[in-house]
């Protein structure tokens, strides 16, 4: 075996990552490492070196709680045997490598652009030229939706091929939200600029993405926050999970026309995000998570207030949940709609909720714990059926779990021990990888520094990157009118995908 095994948030020397010949690299990552059911690919990407591309593959192994990293040097015009040809999990990763560097995969199932980034390899085509899959038939028709959708949501294009009202095929096209964030991480050199970038990757996962960044950066700079800081961050992460899950349950009620549920759950989110506002001045927690410090310590007054908010929330949440999940008109829309079987979810490499809904035990809090999660064993909530109902119930149960965690955090909140010394420069020639389980699923950030300790590469992977394909599969053979509820129940990110 030729890889280096690291723990979540461990910094290693970049040179320690073994470099393999391509056939071996493929063999190891696709066949050997992923044979283990508890292993999954958390990131796979390329870095431009002078005349070649360095590929870096990171396979997380949940049973050994480590991440196995290996690399390989390839040349642009060298024809390559595609990973995705053997394992679909790599489908998007390879498309990204192809799009960014022009790497020539000979047997990729569909080598199409991912997001038309500003620094793409070929500028011959732009986002309006995306090559959609088509079927010639007099019976079938196509429906195009987006990039601008009916409601206030982010842009992306959905192209359906339908047989009457039934969806045969859905292809999703993204890139509209591409802001060039990974490049900005390099060109904006102030730490505060980078923290700000991290919290703007996806505004519904401010805490999760910021946490991945600060954990990574603190590891790179070899500083260790005290317990209170670690507690605060997890408290914020669980609160974010609760707030967004609540909002999504409300939106799911909207999509099935259940007005009471929509209104009640919608307003139940309000005190949670208003609490963030009270804590740090921002309803979505921007400004809260900072490297090596906090500008907004969690005080006793806040403790009392949050405890009260949770008590009030819980009562009303249980009441409306009972009603929602026993309402025949809701259940008939939720059950057996948008199904992804365990087998398919495994094949697609789903992460986060999109894995747990199909009975796959995948959760960074349990497999690669950090901060407060190291103090106990988190038990992920699992559902069996992979349908809209499973995704709704999963949210309900995860909210209950988050409430219990936040209560526990409040009860055992440690005294502030020390202030961290000012942050130094990152270690030189280093590599760090950071995993966080946001409400959507596993977020992965990784960084590389040069011999001056300057950032030379920053890679972000939002769980949506994996999970969008799963939505396309889920809606097959469903009525097209069920698409909104399917889409909402996955609630994937456009900007997190497009970066």
């Amino acid at each position, binding site marked *: 075996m030729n890889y280096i095994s690291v723990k979540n948030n461990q910094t290693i020397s970049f040179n320690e990552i073994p470099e393999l010949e391509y056939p071996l690299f493929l063999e190891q990552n696709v066949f050997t490492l992923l044979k283990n059911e508890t292993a999954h690919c958390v990131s796979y990407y390329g870095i431009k070196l002078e005349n070649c591309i360095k590929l870096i593959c990171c396979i997380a192994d949940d049973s050994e709680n480590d991440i196995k990293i290996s690399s390989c040097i390839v040349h642009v015009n060298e024809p390559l045997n595609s990973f995705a040809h053997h394992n679909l999990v790599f489908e998007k990763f390879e498309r990204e490598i192809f799009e960014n560097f022009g790497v020539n995969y000979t047997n990729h199932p569909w080598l199409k652009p991912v997001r038309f980034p500003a620094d793409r390899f070929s500028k011959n085509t732009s986002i309006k030229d995306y090559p959609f899959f088509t079927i010639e038939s007099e019976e079938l028709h196509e429906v195009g939706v987006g990039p*601008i959708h009916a409601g206030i949501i982010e842009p992306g294009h959905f192209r359906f091929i339908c047989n009457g009202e039934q969806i045969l095929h859905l292809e999703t096209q993204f*890139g509209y939200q591409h802001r060039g964030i990974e*490049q900005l991480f390099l060109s904006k050199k102030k730490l505060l600029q980078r923290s*700000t970038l991290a919290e703007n990757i996806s505004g519904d996962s401010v805490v999760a993405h910021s946490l991945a960044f600060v954990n990574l950066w603190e590891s790179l700079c070899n500083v260790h926050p005290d317990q209170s800081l670690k507690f605060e961050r997890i408290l914020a992460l669980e609160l974010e999970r609760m707030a967004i899950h609540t909002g999504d349950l409300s939106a799911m009620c909207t999509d099935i026309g259940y007005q009471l549920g929509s209104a009640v759950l919608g*307003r139940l989110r309000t005190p949670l995000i208003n609490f963030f506002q009270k804590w740090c001045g921002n309803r979505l927690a921007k400004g809260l998570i900072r490297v090596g410090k906090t500008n907004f310590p969690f005080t006793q007054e806040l403790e009392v207030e949050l405890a009260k908010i949770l008590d009030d929330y819980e009562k009303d949440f249980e009441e409306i949940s009972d009603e929602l999940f026993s309402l025949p008109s809701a259940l008939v829309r939720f059950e057996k709609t948008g199904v992804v079987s365990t087998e398919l979810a495994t094949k697609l490499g789903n992460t986060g909720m999109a894995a747990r809904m199909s009975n796959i035990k995948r959760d960074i809090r349990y497999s690669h714990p950090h901060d407060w999660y190291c103090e106990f064993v988190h038990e992920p909530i699992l559902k069996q059926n992979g349908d809209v109902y499973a995704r709704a119930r999963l949210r309900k149960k995860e909210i209950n779990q988050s409430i219990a965690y936040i209560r526990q955090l409040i009860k055992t909140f440690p005294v502030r021990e020390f202030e961290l010394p000012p942050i130094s420069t990152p270690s030189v020639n280093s590599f760090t990888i950071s995993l966080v389980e946001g409400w959507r699923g596993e977020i992965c950030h990784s960084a590389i520094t040069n011999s001056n300790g300057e950032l030379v590469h920053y890679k972000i992977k939002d769980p949506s990157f994996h999970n969008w394909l799963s939505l396309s599969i889920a809606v097959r053979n469903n009525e097209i009118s069920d698409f909104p509820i399917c889409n909402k129940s996955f609630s994937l990110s456009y*900007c997190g995908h497009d970066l």
Partner: protein
Amino acid sequence: MLKNLNILRHQGKQFIPDISSAKLANTFRGRPVISSEEVDENELMELCPTNAISANPVCIDLGKCTFCGECAINFPKKIQFTNDYKIATNIRENLIVKAGNDELIQLNVETIRKEIQEYFSGSLKLRQVSAGGDNSCELELNACSNVNFDMGRFGIDFVASPRHADGIVITGPITENMSRPLQICYDAIPDPKIVILAGTDAISGGIFEGSPALNRSFLSKYKVDLYVPGNPIHPLTFINGVLALIQKRK
């Protein structure tokens, strides 16, 4: 049925009765106040992530500010953020807050196009376009219509089709990849129409300023009728700003 009525009863009153006088937590960062205290202005400018601070005298441009609060934390005697959320205006320069000048941020009534109050004072339908928005302003714009803020009571709603809209609300720094769809959407809105920029990213590019993936040329073509700063915008900032824009004046 009984159960539903019970649930309804348990909600109590959730709406904010007076949208223009609601109080936010003191920690909320709205309009800053800058004192005339002497500070190292270079150091102050240097710490800002988006070059929102300029010197001599010290000014903060709310069109660039991400409201991170870092300047106020490091220079508490110089800069303080108040919880005044009424920071929307129709004049770009009005977003620049100067040292020693503790004035409210308002709309300049003289420069509001006549047809706006004529056509839209009783009813305004808006089409939202996210052009690289990070989904935070989008969440808050959705919140404007929830039971708490209930913007619909003023006749202001978001609509699905640009054909039904009286104006466009843009969020995000405007990416190259969204520039064409944005233009198509704008063109599809019947005249007269208004343009609202919601959030720091839309107003100046925010933290994304300078990225080669942006294309902000749309903004040089049309007059912006309302700037709503924030990262993300607060629903109260948005609703009060829009109400001030469309208010009937004699």
